[in-house]
């Protein structure tokens, strides 16, 4: 069979087409396999989360049991003398400040909720949602106004709690998560008047994206703030002996 030049070209071009088709087919089927894999991972991850949640609940139960035992032991020890009592009260005080015990007292509740976005068309734009800056600003204002204990959505703020944007949520410490599109409730125990003034000072709740949120400040007599679920770390700090 005599093959002319044009026929040869046609063959080459067809070969190229075949190559492209086969290659693309191969690539896409590989991709599908990968997608299935990640699906599998997701399921695995969900079950892992469930397991960890259960584990956390159990640990919380043992934690509260052990701390109540500790309390009992301290009480029996402090019965012996005045010095022991003094130490005990100091210890309790320190605990309250560290956020490892539930506390209650008068204070304010600040409720922040996103304004309805009917009239603002671009709701997904940057700078619309609450971020770490705004939350840090609020917490800082509260500390400055003399707050003694603060919680955000019932997550206790301790001296070791950091606030950082994490994906579409805001991480509070290592355990808490709040979502900027949902209602956020900040509780603070302290002198109500000072806290109120601090919060309602002009501009203090107009900071960055906070102007896109409705806020409501309520003074209350009896606010309960739960203990932190994060354990405070002291791996590196050491007392300086005088």
């Amino acid at each position, binding site marked *: 069979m005599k093959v002319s030049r044009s026929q040869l070209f*046609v063959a080459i071009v067809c070969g190229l087409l075949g190559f492209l088709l086969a290659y693309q087919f191969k690539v896409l089927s590989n991709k599908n396999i990968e997608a299935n894999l990640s699906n599998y991972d997701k399921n695995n991850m969900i079950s892992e989360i469930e397991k960890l949640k259960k584990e956390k609940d159990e640990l919380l139960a043992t934690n509260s049991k052990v701390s109540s035992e500790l309390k009992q032991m301290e009480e029996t020890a402090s019965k012996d003398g005045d010095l022991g009592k003094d130490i005990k009260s100091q210890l309790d005080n320190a605990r309250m400040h560290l956020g490892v015990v539930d506390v209650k007292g008068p204070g304010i509740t600040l409720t922040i909720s996103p304004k309805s976005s009917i009239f603002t068309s671009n709701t997904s734009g940057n700078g619309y949602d609450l971020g770490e800056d705004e939350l840090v600003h609020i917490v800082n204002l509260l500390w400055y106004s003399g707050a003694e204990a603060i919680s955000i959505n019932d997550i206790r703020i301790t001296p070791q709690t950091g606030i950082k944007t994490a994906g579409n949520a805001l991480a509070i410490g290592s355990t808490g998560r709040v979502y900027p599109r949902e209602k956020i409730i900040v509780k603070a125990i302290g002198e109500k008047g000072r806290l109120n003034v601090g919060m309602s000072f002009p501009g203090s709740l107009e900071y960055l994206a906070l102007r896109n949120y409705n806020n409501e400040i309520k003074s209350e007599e009896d606010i309960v703030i739960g203990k932190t679920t994060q354990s405070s770390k002291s791996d590196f700090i050491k007392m300086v002996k005088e």
Partner: protein
Amino acid sequence: MIAVIGLLIGIILGFVLDVNISDKLSPYMSVAILACLDSVFGAVRGNLSKNFQPDIFISGFFGNALLAAGLAYLGDKLGIPIYMAAVIVFGGRIFDNFAIIRRLLLEEFKIKRRNLYKKNSIEKENNDT
């Protein structure tokens, strides 16, 4: 015939060879392949209607593929799905071409059958006389 052999060799090469083309180019490749397929269908149609020209086929093959991939790329950069234009045009043309190919093949088949029938009847007449 030679085209089919080329196609087969290409498919085998594609599966056997482990060539790495960047993953980013994959969507553009798909559009380019569509353009190539359109050219091939056009060529088959040209072949059947006896006006196939290799130079037109080859230039169309590469030109269409490059243009389609380029448009898809441009659309990606501009944020509008221009690749849809390529998909619709080439997809539509593939169907058009296939319709014409079908008609041509069917006509050819009918003519062949008629000829066969005529031949048979002539032979019968000859046998009778």
